[in-house]
């Protein structure tokens, strides 16, 4: 039956002589979620499967290419024909300069991005998720002053199939295990909390002990945190703040955004190939997009145009080396498409993480932001600090609140990176970075 849906869809697309190119993306997504509320009560077990069929049709018009994307939810041949005709009509009115929509067929590297636990029966997977949550609870329980407030364990097993008029038939299975853990403890006269979250591709990769230890240490520091005073000077970002800086939770960092071929074509990027991306005074940044890391959270073997993944140097020693490009904008700019944007790798520095705090002046360390959300092209930010430290006279004094104010491009221009590295949810790079001059607004 499943095969029939694809077969019917493909038949309609092949038979329609008005269509010059087409691509079908079939995505099957299975979830096994467990939600824990107060007193570690199980509030909700959520399981289920969704199946989506997304079709893009293309029509050539001399120097132009019309395209439109639809989804198919009714699989009778007549309904599919009707939807495809509507898409063709939409494509006739949404024309772009011509480009070849798909890459040439070539061998695609098979990436291991999937947890074999998801091959088990639903009952078995549910048991594994429950055991996993119990391990988290027990790990938290080791700390008598810490309360397990709530948690969510969300898992997804996604299978994507791409089929094109050019004969590509590419499949990729990828899983993810996400944990959101809320811990509370008594602070200065009142309870305080910390939300820790982490995603890995497999249960095995998820180190519960380290995750809980980090969350416990953080919530204890939050409980002792005061408010910051106004500060201008060196600021060290440690994980997860450094991860947020280079791989924000939403969107991409302004370095990657300005490096995209689309931004270049739109005339909104300020970067030039082979030119420095900032006025460097300190260590020069090297930033790569590597979609080929096994079990990498942002790994992917191919993109929507069937362009294979690669390890791409975007910025090397501060110079823009390559634009990140899908097929469309690569053709427009006459460059080679780079495949999917992957894990962000930042080259380590020369100093130890401890050395980044050295100097005569006090240093601010930012451990966690409320939400680091810089302006996508300009790179300006003013982000609230959820946990930071003032390092002064040999003391590390925690604080909460205030804004870290600056620009991503000014910050990286005068920076030093640690030689120790960390790997966290698509970020592979230094454990700490020192920006030599940023502003913290006081409260």
């Amino acid at each position, binding site marked *: 039956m499943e095969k029939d849906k694809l077969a019917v869809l493909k038949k309609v697309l092949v038979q329609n002589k008005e269509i010059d190119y087409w691509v079908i993306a079939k995505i099957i997504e299975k979830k096994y979620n467990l939600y824990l*509320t107060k007193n570690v009560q199980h509030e909700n077990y959520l399981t289920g499967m969704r199946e989506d069929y997304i079709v893009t049709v293309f029509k050539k018009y001399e120097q132009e290419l019309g395209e439109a994307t639809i989804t198919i939810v009714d699989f009778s041949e007549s309904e599919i024909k009707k939807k495809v005709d509507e898409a063709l009509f939409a494509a006739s009115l*949404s024309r772009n300069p011509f480009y070849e929509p798909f890459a040439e067929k070539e061998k695609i590297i098979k990436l291991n991005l999937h947890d074999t636990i998801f091959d088990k029966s639903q009952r078995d997977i549910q048991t594994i998720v429950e055991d996993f949550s119990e391990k988290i609870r027990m790990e938290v329980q080791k700390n008598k002053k810490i309360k397990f407030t709530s948690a969510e364990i969300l898992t997804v097993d996604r299978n994507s199939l791409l089929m094109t008029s050019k004969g590509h038939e590419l499949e990729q299975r990828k899983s993810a295990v996400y944990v959101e853990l809320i811990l509370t403890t008594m602070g200065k006269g009142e309870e305080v909390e910390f939300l820790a979250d982490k995603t890995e591709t497999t249960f095995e990769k998820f180190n519960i002990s380290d995750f809980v230890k980090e969350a416990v240490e953080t919530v204890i520091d939050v409980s002792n945190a005061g408010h910051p005073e106004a500060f201008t000077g060196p600021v060290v970002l440690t994980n997860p703040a450094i991860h947020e800086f280079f791989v924000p939770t939403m969107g991409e960092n302004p370095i990657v955004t300005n490096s995209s071929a689309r931004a270049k074509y739109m005339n909104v990027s300020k970067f030039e190939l082979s030119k420095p991306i900032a006025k460097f005074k300190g260590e020069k940044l090297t930033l790569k997009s590597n979609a080929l890391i096994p079990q990498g959270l942002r790994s992917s073997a191919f993109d929507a145009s069937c362009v294979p993944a690669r390890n791409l140097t975007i910025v090397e020693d501060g110079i823009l080396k390559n634009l990140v490009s899908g097929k469309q904008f690569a053709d427009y700019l006459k460059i080679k498409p780079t495949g999917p944007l992957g894990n962000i790798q930042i080259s380590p520095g020369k100093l130890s993480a401890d050395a980044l705090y050295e100097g005569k002046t006090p240093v601010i360390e930012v451990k966690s932001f409320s*939400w680091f959300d810089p302006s996508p092209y*300009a790179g300006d930010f003013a982000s609230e600090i959820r946990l930071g430290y003032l390092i002064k006279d040999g003391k590390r004094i925690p604080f909460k*609140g205030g804004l870290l104010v600056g620009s991503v491009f000014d910050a990286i221009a005068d920076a030093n990176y640690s030689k120790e590295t960390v790997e966290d949810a698509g970020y592979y790079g230094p454990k700490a970075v020192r920006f030599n001059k940023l502003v913290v607004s006081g409260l």
Partner: protein
Amino acid sequence: MDLKNRSEIKKIFLKLVEIMEQRCRRADVLLIERKELAISRDFSTVDVENVSERGIKLRAYTGNKYYETHTTNLDEANLVKIAEELVANLPENKEIPLTKDFLDKDFSEKGKISPDSIKFEDKIKLTESAVQKMKNSNLQNARCNYEEEITYKAFCSRNKFLTQRLQRVLMLVIPYIKAEDGSTRYAFEQALANGYEATKDIDEKIAKVLETIEHVKVAKRIKPGKYTTITCPDPTGVLAHESFGHGAESDTAYKGRAKMAEHIGDKIAPDFVNIIDDPSIESAYGHYFFDDEGEFVKPTYMVKDGVITDYITESFSIERMGKKQSANGRAQSFDHKSYARMSTTFFGQGEDSLKDMIASVKDGIFFIGPVGGMEDPKGWGVQLQRGMAQKIKNGKLVDEYYWNVSVTGYLPTILGNIKKVSKEFEITHASHCGKGHKEWVEVASGGPYLLIENLDLG
């Protein structure tokens, strides 16, 4: 299942509820079908997506937990199978309550002009024309997005079968501007309605956003510090949203994650401050007739006359908290859990005039927006970020602009420092709100202009 046949959906859904309630205390079924047309055009390219999703979620509540499943396969036999499987391991329920009154209601949001009545080519032309109008300006690029969303929902429990059709049209215009420092900044204006009439003001929106270009170009970073600030309806709304708001979500409070739980009945702001969530405002992006748990909409006052009052709720937490349920149980889609979520959240209208408010400020900031924000319901921290602002000097707005301005602070201090609330009032902000960084639902926010003293800006 024939989705055009409402009585067939009802029949099948009641059957599924009956199957599940053989082994649970309460069961419900929710169908969500969402169709979206998105046209996105800039100076050089255009993208068209006409996508939809359709699926059903089934929930069985045992009295201490929910078991929930979902599917996109709407064959009756498959639905019966997954309903049976969902409750297969639960003990038999011997006390199925009798259904006395059965409610069957259908709601439809039509708007003034149905987007279905407008030809696709006219929608395409509209975006072309909008971009063309912005081409006349000295911009790096400009984008116009036309988004239309039609959602059909059917909810069924043992005593209710409810259906609703919701319709939203949103237009965005975004000019990209080269700032004096060479970087690209942008501004935007949005027009929204529950019908195609949203598009009628687009020329006015374009003119308004183009007027701001020169301000955005020269705007500076603000010197971090405390300012007497007048917030425009956009940041006012985001402040309501991020405070009470997220801070008043019953599931968060039940977990012990909301400071509000310790302060119900406490005075937190002056008498003239009210914060309200109201899903019944038809013209707003956060509008619906019933929530994803079958509750009918009505306004909730989270702060009334300056006092902390009610939660916005979903069923699991509110049953345990023993409070009344509001219609705020919402799920991102059929494959997501329902949480307590906002709809249209705003500060209540005041009595001051904006003109007088500005005139009363000797040295301060007019915080224009638009902004995003982040909640901190346990710590009562507030963060609003990425807004435009303008200087107020000697009671007048002057030509000095600030870019990427953020607000931080402690909620009781901020609310306690509200000195004036304007009679001018607008629901402006249409967006998608996450719980943390996930579970996105459509929300709106807005309100009056607020005069707040000693607001921390940076």
